[in-house]
């Protein structure tokens, strides 16, 4: 009997368990189905949002590109205009500077010529004065030279002349003497030289040199 009971109890419990498992199985299956539906819905919404965003983005980019192109076009136009304006201004400035420089140069040249002329006139005047003074001094010195130095100088020159003449005479005499001696010496033969020496010895003997 207990076994039957036990068996019945076991059977009931197993059945309960099986029912419980089946119940949860279906429950989970429903939940999964709901989740899949939600997921699909979310995915649909997501794609819709993304597509919308992309469409807006494209529109923004296109608008920005158009705007930038417009700006660039405007900028180039402004730049060309500015360059032309600057060139015109520079050209005008250059012309002004050139005109002013030419005027200044003419003024400077004129001033310089005037100054130079003035200076040369002044120098000429000074030089004339200096020459006049120099001439006067020279005349004075020449007069003094004639009065005092010239006679002394003439005297010195005369003395020097005499001295030099005397030296020249002496030199000439020496040359004549040497040349004459040499000529006479060469003109005497060896025999005559020998005779003259013997005669000298005779004279020496007569004067008692060998005694």
């Amino acid at each position: 009997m207990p076994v039957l009971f036990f068996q019945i109890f076991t059977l009931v419990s197993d059945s309960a368990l099986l029912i419980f498992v089946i119940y949860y199985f279906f429950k989970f299956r429903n939940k999964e189905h709901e989740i899949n539906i939600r997921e699909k819905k979310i995915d649909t919404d997501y794609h819709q949002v993304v597509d919308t965003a992309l469409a807006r983005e494209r529109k923004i980019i296109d608008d920005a590109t158009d705007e930038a192109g417009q700006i660039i076009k405007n900028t180039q136009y402004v730049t060309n205009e500015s360059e032309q304006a600057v060139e015109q201004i520079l050209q005008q400035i250059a012309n002004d500077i050139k005109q002013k420089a030419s005027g200044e140069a003419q003024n400077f040249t004129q001033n310089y010529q005037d100054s130079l002329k003035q200076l040369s006139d002044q120098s000429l005047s000074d030089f004339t004065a200096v020459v006049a003074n120099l001439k006067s001094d020279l005349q004075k010195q020449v007069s003094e030279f004639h009065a005092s130095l010239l006679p002394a100088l003439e005297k010195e020159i005369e003395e020097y002349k005499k001295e030099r003449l005397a030296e020249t005479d002496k030199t000439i005499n020496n040359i004549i003497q040497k040349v004459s001696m040499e000529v006479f010496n060469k003109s005497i033969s060896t025999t005559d030289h020998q005779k003259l020496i013997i005669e000298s010895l005779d004279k020496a003997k007569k004067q008692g040199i060998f005694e």
Partner: protein
Amino acid sequence: MDKLDLSNFFTTKYEAQDFAERISQIIERMYDAKFNVEQVFADTLSIQKKDKFIELLRNNSIPLSDTSKLKQFMNDILEKISKIPVLTLTIAFNPTQETLESLSSWCTLNIGKQLVFDINVDPNLIGGAVILYGGKYYDFSAKPQFEKVLEEILNNKTTVAPAASQNTPQNSQPEGVAVVANT
């Protein structure tokens, strides 16, 4: 006249010194054991002087074989050379050997003794000689007279001494100007 006459061997002071040196060499070689007088004379003296020297030995009775006498005679020669008086002559030309021998002969004949000459040459003397002997100086050259004449001419003196003007270089008789010098 001196028996030892060496006038054939030298006339000048330089020759006398050279001869004395050769005699000294002969004396030195006499101490050699193999001394051969003929050979030594031939080596030391010239052929001419060797013959004259042998003749001198013969005249003085010195036998060639007697070395001791020969040595004594050589020493006598050296002594004689050292005592020969020197006559310093300044003359106007370079004397030949003949002139020197002639002068030496004059000395031997007129003075009776040999002299050696110390010759100096001065062409400015023109002719004659300047003699220096025994401390005495005599100028017998033509130079003083020539200078006197030349000075007169250069000073435009019209009156030139006849004796001076007639003296040509060939027959001039130079007057001796004696100056005694203490040397």
